[in-house]
């Protein structure tokens, strides 16, 4: 197992006490695998990604649990060690390509800077490798682009460069947090293809965070569904999308306009997204769930294997299985 998160919880401390944004998250990624986390805003999917590299702010506290990367617990090692790991072993790509690059440093220099960090090469060689890295993410005229500043490039180009930066080492694991959300659909497709290709070529594992079911279905082998800072369902992408077990996953898929009949109303999920500051005692989805009973509101369900390699955290689902 390349990465193993076990029972990780994260709290944010603010002016008025603390809010639990992640609750007992466990997941694992094996070598060469693409794992997807899908969820809406407030589900904790981005926090999960940031917690791995310990990039959460000072107001965040990661309590209990462990994050094992190649066997070492990332939560226990010293700051220096995690800094050495960032980019070298685990790369990360963020949502906003427009602001993710150093605005006053040339592209080639930015890449060379990172390459120098991770590989024992001379300045000159680093620059050559930087140009090569641009070529690897399918940028035409890499020499020309290397001599440009970020503001001279389009969003799609910048996201390619951000990916090139993250892949500079190259790392064993690439975390991509909504890598295509800010891009046009047509560009999105190209970026997703690029990620898939890099995964193939280098055998790099990928953790992809998204709100878009389409991205999940196109890219991921396995999928986790998050709601309210918890994992509510996990399994193979096929299983989760075609045979969803958790009422939330089902409802989410039904709410998509993609396949809906325009003559019928969409099956919307009633209510609003859970407010993390008022975490209920029972299942966090119970308030919006169409099949929740009294028991669901007072008792919290655990993630159980309902089908082989397919887990869900739902009292009803378990009963269904038992019946």
């Amino acid at each position, binding site marked *: 197992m390349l990465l193993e998160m076990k029972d990780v919880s994260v709290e944010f401390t603010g002016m008025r006490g603390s809010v639990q944004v992640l609750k007992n998250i466990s997941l694992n990624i094996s070598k060469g695998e693409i794992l997807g986390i899908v969820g809406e805003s407030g589900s904790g999917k981005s926090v999960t990604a940031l917690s791995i590299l310990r990039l959460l702010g000072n107001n965040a506290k990661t309590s209990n649990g462990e994050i094992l990367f190649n066997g070492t617990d990332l939560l226990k090692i010293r700051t220096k060690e995690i800094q050495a790991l960032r980019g070298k072993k685990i790369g990360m790509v963020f949502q906003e390509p427009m602001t993710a690059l150093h605005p006053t440093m040339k592209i080639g220099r930015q890449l060379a800077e990172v390459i120098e960090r991770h590989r024992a090469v001379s300045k000159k060689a680093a620059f050559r490798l930087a140009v090569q890295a641009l070529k690897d993410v399918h940028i035409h005229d890499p020499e020309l682009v290397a001599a440009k500043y970020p503001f001279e490039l389009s969003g799609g180009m910048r996201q390619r460069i951000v990916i090139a930066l993250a892949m500079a080492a190259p790392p064993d694991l690439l975390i991509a947090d909504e890598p295509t959300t800010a891009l046009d659909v047509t560009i999105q*497709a190209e970026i997703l293809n690029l990620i898939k290709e890099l995964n193939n070529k280098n055998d790099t594992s990928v953790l992809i965070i998204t709100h878009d079911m389409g991205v999940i279905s196109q890219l991921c082998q396995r999928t986790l569904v998050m709601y309210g800072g918890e994992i509510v369902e996990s399994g193979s992408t096929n299983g989760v999308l075609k045979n969803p077990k958790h009422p939330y996953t089902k409802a989410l898929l039904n*709410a*998509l306009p993609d396949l809906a009949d325009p003559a019928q109303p969409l099956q919307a999920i009633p209510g609003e997204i859970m407010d993390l500051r008022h975490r209920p005692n029972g299942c966090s989805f119970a308030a919006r769930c169409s099949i929740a009973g009294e028991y669901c509101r007072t008792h919290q369900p655990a993630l159980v294997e309902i089908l082989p390699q397919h887990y869900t955290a739902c009292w009803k689902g378990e009963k269904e299985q038992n019946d």
Partner: protein
Amino acid sequence: MIDIHQVRKTFKTGAMKIDAVKDTNLSIQQGETVGLVGESGSGKSTLGKMLSGLETPTDGMIAYKGIELWKKKKFKRLRPGEIQTVFQDPQSSLDPRMRVKDIILEPLLALNSKERKEKGKMERLIYLMKRVGLKEDHMNRYPHEFSGGQRQRIAIARALITDPQFMILDEPTSALDISVQAQVLNLLKELKREKNLTYIFISHNMSVIRYMCDRVAVMYKGKIVEIGPVQSIFQNPKHPYTKILLSSLPSLFEETKEKINFSHPPSLSSESACVFYQKCPLRQEICLKEPCYQPASENHTFSCHLQ
């Protein structure tokens, strides 16, 4: 109901002139929902803004019910409140310092006092709030106390207070989560039926367009490259850009779908070339001349040489 004739909008940045919208024709019938789809910078929002009075057309004519909206660069409201807009970002479309009640009633300030009194009655306000899914006691709260979906409901209630006939929906659900998006889309559909509204629906999301619209116009670099009934466009796209757009839509259940990609910019170009020339995978020499519109089927036209 709406007639857009040869409309052009040119933005100047320094010495550069960019046509955000060029030579666009579009007419919208009473009661239909017309979708405008395209990527960022395609001019779809600019077109919407010219209908609502936020941008002045550089050239051309826009008429509402046969009467020109723009006369000598001045926006004429035949009757204020007939055309209303709902914007994308409910975060910034509500004044953070106003109470919900005042926000919803604000458009009435443009009406004459008789109409204002009539439409601003408390029962009407409460009815509208309930209709869009808000509670009566939300009236005295401030926008920051609401979630994104609720704010969009407030924005919709505000647009409805003047009893408009035509609404410009500019990416109304793009900032919302999927589960909330479905609620808002349903609401918009119901309202349309109830009040016999006409919509122009601007979005970059093809599946939302498919679900919401009767007709759709695909825009690229300021030009409508293809327009027709939703069914026809989705099943039988003619323009290469529309095809790429449809093929890049990540689909949930189809495993293998043939993907068409953009082409890289050619060395040769011309001022009068087709708008899609730079990226078209099928381009040929003839494309250096701007193509005319040609019919594909009933009501379905596109602008490409190569079909």
